[in-house]
């Protein structure tokens, strides 16, 4: 049996500084057999996408392959040019990218995009290409291919588009498929079907698949073998079951331990972190400042039959109803979760509670008082929010210290609460106050965001997908921080996420939203062990299972 892909001792260098170099990939070797799905896993900056680019000849200068060999379709890579001689990208290798929204040309019909490559590579006629395209669309389970053939990308959903991308990647019968984060931009229910499809195609077509991903659940669900990378080097590799079940390297163990689990709730994520005494002390100083933290269990926020509509109004034109009849109560001191797929209305609800969107039905009450979009300063101060994208949530022109001082001065917090204390409370060094946001990593920026939100000494912290843009180990640390803050200061949180596993780890009670409605509201433990609503059951069954994963290592003192 010939291998679909053989990489031996690959090294990729980027120039750094005046004449130094930096190895983005170092001494990487892997073999993918026909019909085998090989997962390449690592956090951002591990070099996994660079490997994918090398294989497809897409490595951009100044990056350079300096050693090693790549063999695809029994052809070898020429190190000097970085190209595999005689390799036809698109014919010998199919590629699937992360974002199905941008992978297709919006001006061409689906049929044209599928036929183009085939007619070029296989030298076949129009009608033959069409027949083959329709057959491919059936193979990737696109319903009603004849109609879809003449439609444009915008007429298809995200999942359907990703199927078209897969069909297009397969159109010239390549022996190897490189899939770079193929399901990261998709909802869980769509992700599950796409993964099934890949699994199925790989075994039926004897296709080697290099699956580049950061998601351990995806790895566990469909891959045969796995290679874990860190800083360009292989940390561990082997059969997926074995690596995930009994990781040997420390880093692999930490990485797998940081994955939020759906099956069991842990008090904290078992990641190595330096929780210093300054942090604990600073958090304790915040503790006395959360108003009413003592009357835990009373109602803090209640929504009664809330509806939110976008647009419409003119001449009775109906707007888009983002949320309908949402009712729930958030008690002091709890973490209340809202889960749902994209478009379920969970973020609209958060914006309305934060005072960024008006509601047009029902009413909200906060601390017993009606909560409107126009609200007094003390209410604004009491409800703060942290956002999903750490790169847009901080003003790039403002030093982080100034960004924190602004709410402190504005709210008149005074009495000894300084940016430095807040930075310590979120686990950042005091010197961080003097730097601009671009000097921070994504996880650190999210900590600055949390510090800014805490500057208002809020009663309620709205967390809108606070970790979905972060690497798994960074996510674990930020989630631990949020838990610590709750435990030490009695802060109430409204936690919004699409990730059920994260919600399971974080929340006391959970509302599940679908198409603007709350379909189930339950204690987290009950919801995850005995879901009542069929939609919740569906969602839970679609999450990649981590059964084979190593049990989380016991954390000393946890």
């Amino acid at each position, binding site marked *: 049996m010939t291998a679909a892909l053989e990489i031996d001792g690959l090294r990729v260098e980027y120039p750094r500084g005046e004449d130094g170099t930096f190895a983005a990939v170092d001494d990487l070797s892997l073999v993918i057999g026909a019909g085998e799905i090989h997962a390449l896993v690592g956090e951002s900056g591990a070099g996994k996408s660079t490997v994918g680019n090398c294989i497809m000849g897409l490595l951009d200068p100044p990056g350079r392959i300096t050693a090693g060999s790549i063999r695809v379709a029994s052809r070898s890579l020429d190190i000097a040019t970085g190209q595999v001689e005689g390799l036809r990208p698109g014919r010998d290798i199919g590629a699937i990218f992360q974002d199905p929204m941008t992978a297709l040309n919006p001006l061409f019909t689906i049929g044209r995009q599928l036929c183009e490559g085939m007619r070029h590579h296989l030298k076949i006629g129009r009608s033959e290409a069409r027949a083959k395209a329709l057959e491919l669309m059936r193979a990737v389970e696109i319903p009603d291919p004849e109609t879809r053939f003449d439609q444009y990308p915008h007429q298809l959903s995200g999942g359907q588009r990703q199927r078209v991308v897969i069909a297009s990647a397969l159109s010239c019968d390549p022996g190897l498929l490189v899939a770079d984060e193929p399901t990261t931009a998709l909802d869980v229910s769509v992700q599950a079907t796409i993964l099934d499809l890949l699994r199925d195609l790989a075994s039926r077509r004897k296709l080697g698949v290099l699956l580049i991903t950061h998601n351990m659940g995806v790895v566990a669900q469909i891959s045969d073998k796995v290679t874990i990378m860190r800083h360009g080097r292989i940390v561990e590799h082997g059969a997926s079951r074995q690596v995930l079940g009994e990781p040997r390297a420390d880093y692999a163990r930490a990485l797998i331990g940081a994955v939020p689990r759906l099956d069991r709730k842990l008090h904290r994520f078992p990641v190595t972190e330096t929780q210093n005494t300054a942090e604990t002390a600073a958090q304790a100083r915040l503790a006395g400042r959360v108003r009413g933290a003592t009357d835990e269990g009373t109602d803090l926020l209640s929504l009664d039959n809330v509806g939110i509509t976008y647009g419409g109004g003119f001449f009775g034109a109906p707007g888009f109803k983002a949320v309908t009849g949402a009712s729930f109560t958030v008690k002091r001191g709890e973490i209340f979760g809202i889960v749902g797929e994209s478009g379920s209305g969970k973020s609209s609800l958060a*914006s309305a509670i*934060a*005072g*960024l969107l008006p509601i047009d039905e029902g009413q909200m009450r906060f601390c017993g008082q009606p909560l409107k979009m126009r*609200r007094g*300063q003390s209410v*604004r*101060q009491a*409800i*703060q*929010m942290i*956002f*999903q*994208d750490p790169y*847009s*949530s*901080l*003003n*790039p*022109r*403002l030093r982080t210290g100034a960004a924190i001082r*602004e*709410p402190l001065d*504005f*709210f008149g917090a005074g009495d000894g609460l300084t940016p430095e204390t807040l930075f310590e409370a979120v686990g950042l060094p005091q010197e961080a106050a003097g730097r601009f946001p671009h000097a921070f990593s994504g996880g650190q920026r999210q900590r600055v*965001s949390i510090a*800014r*939100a805490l500057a*208002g000494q809020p009663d309620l912290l709205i967390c809108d997908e606070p970790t979905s843009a972060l690497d798994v180990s960074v996510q674990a640390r930020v989630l631990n921080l949020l838990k610590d803050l709750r435990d030490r200061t009695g802060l109430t949180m409204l936690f919004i996420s699409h990730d059920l596993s994260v919600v399971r780890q974080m929340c006391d009670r959970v509302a599940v939203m679908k198409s603007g409605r709350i379909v189930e509201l339950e204690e987290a433990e009950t919801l995850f062990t005995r879901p009542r609503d069929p939609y919740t059951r569906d969602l839970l069954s679609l999450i990649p299972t981590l059964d084979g994963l190593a049990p989380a290592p016991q954390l000393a003192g946890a």
Partner: protein
Amino acid sequence: MASTMKRLTRVMPPYVMVAAAVGLLIILAAIFAPWIAPQDPTSTMSFNLMDSELPPMWVEGGDPRYLLGTDNQGRDLLSAILYGTRISVMIGAGAVLLAATVGVSLGLVAGYFGGWAETVAMRVADVFLSLPAILLALLVAGIARALIPDADSVFWAPIILIAAIGINEWVQYARTTRASTMVEASRDYVRAVRIMGLPRWRILFRHILPNIVGPILVISTINLAAAVLTEATLSFLGVGMPPDYPSLGTLIRIGNEFAFSGIWWITLFPAVTLVALVLAVNITGDWLRDRFNPKLEGKS
């Protein structure tokens, strides 16, 4: 700021560096005209009608006292050009400042609040765009001259010119600012301060404005060149600076009357100065625009 300058000069291609140097030289010479000019061309005491229409120094009949020759009143042409450039640049900068203040304020309000404020501001901007700039400027200058008795005085003439030119240029600022403001306003850092309940003016000027200042500066360089050119046109047409306080445009107009009688220098040297200044500022501005355009980033 110093590091930004260093970074900019490192990536500057040579032709931009030459343009920037020429532009800077002309503007500095204009600013320091009273100290470096051999003569004060605005004071009738300092020049002699007997010296009128002398050719440049290196031409036969030239006088070593007058490097570029003299005009029809015996003024040293080099001094007149230095003072004229000073007036032109000042009027240009004034017009840009006026246009930027009006345009940026309207753009911020339109982009952030939307609604009727946006509709009104942007439709007015459309009306202004549909009128030829020079006609509008002539109209403003004409009306002002009819209303103000001593419109040709050294006090009123520049103010009228600044208003006449500025009224055209605010539109571009308003449109650019509005678009950039809309992008920034949707970012989470703005939502965070909105949740906090910061006053709107503070959100606009402390948080949004510093993030959109790049494109505004770029428009300003290009608009400065355009304003200097419009000023020259108006002065050339006789509705600009009076002959006793000549701008570059006034000098070109004066010289134009003599050009066909062989006295070419009065119109040529101011014209060359004007072209050099406008070209230098435009090249620098164009390059800056490309640098600040995020879509072209990394493709310099």
